């Protein structure tokens, strides 16, 4: 821009973020090599952490930036799982490409869904997305080939004969079950890193600037030329596709699907919202912090059953009343640290 004073420049990165880039590449290398170093139990825990992180990052983009507070993301998790089952069982497609197909199908399915729910605003939108998810659940329970209302399992011929599994078996010298864990771990890692990069690059792009403007004030964004509805639609479809991808991976890994589990509002939306809010909504770091806290809570307290759930409920209330900005929001406010900076700052040259 010509009018800009020459003694200023626009900066996005921070000192912390530049160190993080180096650290991040190192950490990623360690994470990729991890199956050779840690036990199967640890890998299984990390699979859970990664897919919850991916779901949380998607919901964060949706609610934290586009202002679309959805309580119906389980629609896309469940649909992703069911498309994977349909592709592998009915069309004999290998499970690995079937995950990608599931993501694409769910993204396409989100477009007509958007036509319905985008007519609604605020609380109506939230309830509308939930009802749509219920419709998905009830419709898929009608497909007898996919197990109807009681659900079904993937046969061994599908789960144990996927692309790359033999290679992993020889590389690590492990049996099929362990090789499946490693394969799922890598895919989960790729999806988690993918959503993280997607969120980061998206927010640094001009679409991200539009999103941040919408988050701060819809009216103001509209008045400076942001096409709110189009930007929101775009985010809705992209996050739906990513969520579908995650759903397909989850149900390939579990190898058993049922409508009630696949479209569970508690597992795939409520916990995800809790993760984002604990960590800090509207920040990229928030879901990472949140998923770590959630994992630790579950690892140490889940044995307490109902009392664990009561504690989670109480935690949701306490966080929202006393620390609505979440843990990362607090850190940023207190110490000014930003690992994934997306704000544009004017700096003196």
């Amino acid at each position: 821009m010509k009018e800009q004073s020459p003694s200023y420049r626009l900066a996005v990165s921070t000192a912390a973020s530049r160190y993080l880039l180096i650290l991040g590449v190192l950490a990623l290398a360690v994470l990729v090599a991890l199956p050779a170093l840690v036990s199967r139990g640890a890998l299984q825990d990390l699979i859970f952490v990664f897919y919850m992180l991916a779901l949380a990052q998607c919901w964060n983009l949706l609610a934290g930036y586009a202002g679309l507070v959805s309580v119906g993301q389980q629609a896309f998790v469940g649909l992703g799982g069911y498309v994977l089952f349909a592709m592998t069982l009915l069309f004999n497609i290998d499970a690995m490409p079937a995950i990608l197909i599931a993501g694409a199908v769910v993204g396409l399915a989100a477009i007509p869904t958007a036509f319905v729910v985008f007519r609604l605003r605020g609380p109506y939108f939230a309830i509308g997305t939930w009802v749509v998810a219920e419709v998905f659940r009830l419709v898929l329970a009608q497909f007898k080939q996919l197990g109807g209302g009681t659900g079904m399992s993937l046969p061994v011929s599908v789960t144990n004969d996927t692309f790359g599994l033999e290679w992993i078996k020889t590389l690590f010298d492990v049996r099929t079950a362990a090789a499946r864990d490693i394969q799922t771990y890598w895919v989960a890692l790729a999806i988690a890193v993918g959503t993280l990069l997607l969120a980061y690059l998206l927010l640094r792009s001009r679409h991200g600037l539009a999103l941040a403007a919408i988050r701060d004030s819809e009216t103001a964004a509209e008045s400076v030329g942001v096409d709110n509805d189009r930007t929101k639609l775009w985010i809705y479809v992209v996050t739906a596709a990513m969520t579908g991808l995650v759903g397909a991976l989850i149900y390939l890994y579990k190898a058993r699907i049922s409508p009630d589990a696949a479209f569970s509002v508690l597992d795939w939306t409520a916990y995800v919202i809790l993760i984002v809010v604990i960590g800090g909504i509207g920040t990229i770091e928030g879901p990472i912090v949140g998923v770590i806290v959630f994992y630790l809570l579950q690892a140490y307290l889940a044995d307490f059953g109902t009392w664990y759930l009561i504690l989670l409920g109480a935690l949701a209330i306490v966080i929202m009343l006393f620390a609505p900005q979440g843990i990362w929001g607090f850190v940023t406010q207190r110490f000014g640290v930003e690992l994934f900076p997306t704000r544009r700052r004017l700096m003196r040259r």
Partner: protein
Amino acid sequence: MLIWLDTFIQGALLGGLYALFAAGLALIFGIMRLVNLAHGDLIVFSAFLVLALVHALGVNLVIAFLIAAPLMFIIGFALQHVLLNRTLGKDILPPLLVTFGLSIILQNGLQEVFSADSRRLDAGNIETSSIPLFSGLAIGVMPLMTFISAAAVILILNRIFYHTRLGRAFRATSDDPQCAQLMGIDNRRVFALAMGLAMVVTLVAAVYLGIRANFDPSIGPSRLIYAFEAVIIGGLGSFWGTLAGGIIIGVAQTIGAHVNPEWQILAGHLAFLAVLIARPRGLFPRAVD
């Protein structure tokens, strides 16, 4: 022909129950735009409260209801005053998350106290009696009583809303909370009174829920979804609209079930989405959302 008339009447009567679930929600959603995700669990909580009173004191349902009503009013008032008032504002996330937390606490707390077993409220032989209209068509006494109670609750809510001082405060805060405050209305107290009143309505719904079918601590969320559908179809702040919304859901469900028993719930949801595609603000919205 007769079978369709029967289906329609049964559906409308079922709609009465849904309208009862929804009436309390319509009051608080209409006045303070509070999305109360714990509403379904509060209905179940009230049903367990009545059950506990019947068992502990050995009284019948009517007495148990009369004892529970002031208790529920106080619980609602306190809940709003201590907790929910802090969550109100432009952002819908705080009420969503706080009431969701409340919902989990209620569900699991009830399960801890009463176990996950199915329970029922016993209303004697009135449960199975019916009134024959003409040959081949009869309506149950309980469904009819449910519907009449729903209409009565809505009539009373409407009277309060449009013909009392409290109702004027309700309407004022619903229309413009800032202005209402400038006119000397204490919004927080008005909201707490509304929640107390809504909890008494919830108790009425709970009694009919408990007589009609088995209930256990986990059924709250599905009642919540019917209630929300009825409120949204009816339009923000319209009580008669809520009754109409309940009837639309009820009739859609019975017609769906008539075609294929597995389509009952689905048909209700599809009717809701169809109404919203045509009228995104519901059929009879009173206030601006």
